[in-house]
């Protein structure tokens, strides 16, 4: 059908009388690294919540790989190949790092609600978990309860859980928020590596991360897209400079 991994058509969302997303139409192509930027309160996270099914849309259409997904529960959308991380780290704090990663794999490897497989005996499952653990550089932390990891490690773990299920489309909500410069650089390298060949959509405040990682940048202001295009074009866009980047872009 369409080339787009994610296609939004006139998506709207209001909380009570307050409109947050006011008619967003956007195509995110397969394999693209797409950053959504905008000032605080622009509705970036809300947009993510709509795409991933965490919130229902008020109106409009959302397609994932050509299939309509608005109104589906989050777990169904996830099974169709879309995975996300959260702005506030979302992991399983009382389970070990290894278990966290393994939980991310279970559904996609067909275990569903099985209560007859002993997971410790499932070789390919454990091997896949090991590989992911290595991918996110947390091998030395495997037995630690995830809640005891450092902040940056928890973010890395969440990226691991997010990509574990093999989703073709990955949504990352401010993956480097609250990190030091060097931690953020590590995170960017990690994201680049693990989303190779996938569609990546991310909300990000750190402009150096955005311009480093993104193929396309979309600028959201007050629930509307004011510009969308390659980073260089966005940097030069007058309206964007006025609304958002200000003098910082130069």
């Amino acid at each position, binding site marked *: 059908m369409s080339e787009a991994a994610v296609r939004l058509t006139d998506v709207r969302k209001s909380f009570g009388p307050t409109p947050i997303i006011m008619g967003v139409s956007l195509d995110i192509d397969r394999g693209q690294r797409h950053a959504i930027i905008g000032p605080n309160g622009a509705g970036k996270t809300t947009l993510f919540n709509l795409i*991933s099914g*965490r919130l229902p849309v008020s109106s409009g259409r959302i397609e994932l790989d050509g299939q309509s997904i608005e109104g589906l*529960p*989050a*777990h169904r959308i*996830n*099974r169709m190949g879309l*995975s*996300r991380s*959260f702005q506030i780290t*979302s*992991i*399983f*704090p*009382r*389970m*070990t790092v*290894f*278990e966290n990663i*393994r*939980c*991310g794999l*279970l*559904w*996609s490897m067909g*275990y*569903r*609600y*099985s*209560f*007859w*497989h*002993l*997971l*410790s005996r499932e070789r390919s499952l454990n091997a896949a978990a090991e590989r992911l653990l290595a991918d996110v550089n947390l091998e030395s932390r495997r*037995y*630690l*309860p995830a*809640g*005891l990891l450092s902040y940056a490690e928890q973010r890395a773990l969440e990226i691991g*859980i*997010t990509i*574990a*299920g093999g989703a073709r489309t990955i949504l990352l909500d401010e993956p480097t928020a609250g990190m030091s410069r060097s931690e953020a650089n590590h995170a960017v390298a990690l994201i680049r590596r693990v989303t190779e060949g996938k569609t990546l959509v991310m909300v990000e405040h750190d402009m150096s991360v955005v311009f480093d990682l993104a193929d396309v940048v979309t600028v959201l202001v007050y629930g509307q897209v004011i510009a969308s295009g390659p980073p260089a074009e966005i940097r030069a866009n007058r309206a964007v400079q006025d609304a958002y980047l200000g003098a910082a872009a130069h």
Partner: protein
Amino acid sequence: MSEILAHPGARPVEAAGVASLTKRHGPWLLALAVTLVLPWLFYDWSRARHSGFVVAMLSQMSMMAVFALSYNMQMGQAGLLSFGHAVFFGLGGYTTAHVLNAVKSGSFWLPTELVPLAGGVGGLVFAIIFGYVATKQRATAFAMITLGIGELVTACALMFKTFFGGEGGVSTNRVIGTSLFGLTYSPSIQVYYLIVAWTVISVALMLLLTRTALGRMANACRDNFERAQFVGYDPSMVRFFQFSLSGFFAGIAGALYALTYEIVTFDSVAGAMSANALLMTYIGGVGAFAGPVLGAVLIVLLQSWVSLLSNSWLVYVGLLFIVMVTFAPGGIAGILLMHGPIWRARRLGRLAGPYVRVLTPGVLAVAGFVLLVELCSFLTIGAAQGKSFKLSGITIDPQSLKPWLIGALLLVVGGLVLWREGRHFRRSWEAVMEEIKAAGRA
């Protein structure tokens, strides 16, 4: 912290072999050995009879351990607080009673040894029905629904006489003559070993269940149900399956109850029995798999032993619950596990002094409290029963002032010293932990 330490996945599980098997399952094997041998330590050789009291108490402990573990499948493992778990225990019991009666009357054949399975199926079927409703919700809404289900079934138990037998309950007879091993199951010691066998099976299955996809996702939904959705799982389905299986094991516990007492009444589905599951599980410790077993042993001990000594035993259970929730939310298991690192570092001896200093005023304060409670009890209930308050041969007059003063003095002085020593103990504990950390870094 204790809850985190207690998580089974927190410990590396490696290398098989007999040595590591006994090491890993040592406590379980020891518990099993004690369970098997204990009735014989109270055997009356002169009259060639088992102690009925001890066998009854051990049977009760065993079935309650299964009941509490099944409760913890919801509470500790899935983060679901239920106020109606006795429903599945009781309905498992009723099912068993009817099955026993049917086998006895020749309607169909089932070996006595497999009768508990019928109770399990009974519990499972009703857990599927009620769980379908309850597990649509989580947290407070879930708790309220289970409370409603508990009340509903208790009310039904008094209304539908054909199945529940009304207030008189359903009587049955476990001697149905279908044993595979030629046993009659008339002596309670035979039933005891049947109970132990089913307890071992149930405990093993529940332990293995924690290591499956469902068991892990139950933990995951407890920790963060939203994250669970974004790895493809429907949290309400996870809750539903976990709830249903928990009902199965509660039903087995109920079946063991029916086999032991040969009567099932509405008490077995009522709120007090549900509260029992909660008390045992919480006091034992929700964070560790074996916690509820410890809780079951302690609560049954209080129920059957302390209740012989005192009319006010429920006061002590209530107080114990409050103290545990306040000071040791990880339960008995949590307290034990906290000592793990100190034990491994061989520094437990360092705490001996502080322990004596904190336990002595603790014991005195408890003694003072018990004295006051018993004085109250003898002034009211005891007097009505015409009993007199005797303590190691000395009769105490609850009408005189002296025992009340002694009780109050013990409680107040003991309490104050305990409060001061408690802080000292905490400092000693932290010092030892610091030492271990420093040694670990060096």
